[in-house]
């Protein structure tokens, strides 16, 4: 597990360090990020306190704004656990965007009339299933290239993003176009809401359940064990009879399946139509979730919540304070970078402590 050895170790150290100390270091790093951010906010002539209030607190003060956080949380978590499967096998899936787009296409194909009308409510579960399948198939292309040609999955998944984007652009412009605007028709059945008066929907529950599923698969099944063994040491894994190629292929396909689901949820819970750009930046920010959460299921839930808060919050901040979007993204990036720094420092601290003990 070389690639992730640091994360595993840091997590171990993290669990070893005193809880209070960890928390203090993390809070300090967030504070440091906010301090640096304040200087920049002052430079654009806004009030830092007000800006931070809208970024970090306002989004959790009403049900409708929490619903907006959830709109980011669901795809972030799904893509996060998706890429985490691949990371366990030491594979980098940078193609979350493309896989999401194909998942979205799957949902749309089943969801829009005439198929959607014929199926009624059933178009929702079937659409989600087709979305999962198409996401998995698109990732399986990368898996096939990796297994058959030993072609780097990093490059193939990245290139497949560009191709998927153009393919979706074609699809909404020609075969699925509904009306003048290049977008599909509206899907018939959307994800039911959890609360009326908010956009939060059952996608959240689905994502959380799948996180539990992820934990079980990775920790309790032969498949998960082999996957981790393969990520740890290819040779050792092969000695113990793990069919390397099969697992590479499966890990990527599974990864794509979850990204595909994220795409299906975007359609059925957010945009209701297929159009260009429905995948947003989740392909990349999902990787951040996986890494920030150290591939740990609970860690990823927390990381996804945090990232979602930042995304929704920076939107709120932009709207309320007039600070441009390009600037709020600088703040977001700063905060994540400082948290990484805090994680590194607290890991080093607890390690030093351990060394001094022995």
């Amino acid at each position, binding site marked *: 597990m070389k690639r992730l050895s640091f994360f595993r170790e840091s997590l171990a150290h993290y669990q070893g360090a005193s809880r209070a100390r960890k928390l203090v270091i993390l809070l300090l790093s967030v504070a440091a990020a906010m301090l640096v951010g304040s200087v920049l906010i002052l430079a654009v002539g806004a009030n830092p306190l007000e800006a931070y209030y809208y970024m970090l607190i306002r989004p959790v003060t009403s049900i409708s704004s929490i619903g907006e956080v959830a709109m980011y949380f669901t795809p972030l978590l799904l893509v996060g656990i998706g890429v985490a499967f691949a990371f366990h096998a030491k594979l980098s899936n940078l193609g979350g965007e493309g896989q999401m787009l194909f998942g979205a296409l799957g949902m749309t194909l089943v969801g829009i009339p005439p198929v959607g009308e014929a199926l009624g409510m059933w178009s929702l579960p079937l659409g989600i299933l087709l979305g999962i399948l198409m996401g998995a198939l698109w990732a399986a292309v990368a898996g096939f290239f990796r297994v058959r040609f030993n072609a780097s999955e990093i490059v193939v998944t990245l290139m497949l993003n560009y191709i998927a984007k153009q393919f979706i652009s074609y699809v909404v412009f020609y075969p699925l176009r509904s*009306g003048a605007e290049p977008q599909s028709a509206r899907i018939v059945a959307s994800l039911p809401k959890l609360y009326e008066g908010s956009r939060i929907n059952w996608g959240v529950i689905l994502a959380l359940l799948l996180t539990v599923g992820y934990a079980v698969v990775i920790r309790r099944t032969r498949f998960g064990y082999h996957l981790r063994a393969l990520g740890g040491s290819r040779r050792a894994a092969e000695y113990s009879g793990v069919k390397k190629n099969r697992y590479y292929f499966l890990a990527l396909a599974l990864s794509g399946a979850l990204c595909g689901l994220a795409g299906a949820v975007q359609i059925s819970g957010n945009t209701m139509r297929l159009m260009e750009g429905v995948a947003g930046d989740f392909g990349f920010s999902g990787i951040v979730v996986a890494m920030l959460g150290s591939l740990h299921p609970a860690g990823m839930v927390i990381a996804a919540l945090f990232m979602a808060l930042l995304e929704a919050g920076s939107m709120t901040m932009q709207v*309320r304070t007039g600070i441009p979007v390009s600037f709020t993204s600088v703040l977001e990036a700063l905060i994540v970078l400082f948290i990484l720094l805090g994680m590194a420092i607290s890991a080093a601290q607890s390690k030093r402590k351990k060394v001094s003990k022995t």
Partner: protein
Amino acid sequence: MKRIFSLAMALVLTLGLMTACGSSGDTTSSNGSSAESGAAAGERTTVTKIAVLLPGSITDESWNQTAYEGLQQIEAMGYETAYTENVGSNDMEAVFRSYCEDGFDFVIGHGAQYGDACCRVAVDYPDVNFFITGNAPEDVPAEELPENIMFADYRECEGAYVCGVVAGLMTESGKVGYVGGGNNTTQQSDKNAFIEGVASVNPEAEVKSVITGTFDDSALGKETAIAMMEEGVDVILQTCDHTGLGVLEACSENGIYCLGYTTDQSTLVSDGLCLTSMLIDIPTMISSQIDLIKAGGYGGQTFPGLHDGVVSMSAFSDKVPAEVAEQVNAIIDQIKSGELVITPNYSET
């Protein structure tokens, strides 16, 4: 086992947080908009705070920047304004809702792609007026469209048609070019109207068109224009924001005529090579909407164009001979008077 437990804890906490916050905030959100905007329910005849959603960046010297600068003029008239750039399809609804929650009583989506999300939001905020600069979603029956949205598919294609006429008259090689950024209704109808305009005055002329697939890659835009020049193209219309800036740069460098888009782009090109620009008058458009709102019963569909002054052409550069200018002005007058009707054509040619 311990880990599974900790995971379960995290889940419970997450859900707990969501429900707890949910129940406490329930009451404030439902009436938040009307309380903050101060408008009497159902009347919708006041405008104090105006917000605009833009698909791209405000420095593109084009579609988005025009809207941004127009908004600033509106602000100078005493309104409170706000804008959000780069609003992509997964953020649309969130941004609309944010503005409504914040008490904005006039929210504008600058582009037809915002229509569908706006329909969903408008139902929840009946006291807010919405304005979409594009068609209503065609597959939604007219009676299902919320009453508080005005769809204005302004006839940008009339300007593009005039650009086509200019290009058709000015080309010496008989080859003109169109560079587009991607596919949306505006781009498509501009392209088709441009081709139509060229053909109306110069049936032999050939229109070469390239869609670059990006609105941000100015270097690619420049190479695209160069590729066109190699084929003998000598007048180019671009409608692709940042990518288009590269096109203008190439025209400027190689002494090829170009046509400006949405804003007067003649300052970006040397020697008067920018023959004319089609202009979109955002302040006029917004302020005319404000008048309509104040008159009451705002909503529906409208198609402003050259006739209404929302679309217009900038002054011709000194490269345009007087007789060409005369001919073009005659066509502009024909469109204004309704003698010549340009119907937007959204299909791929």
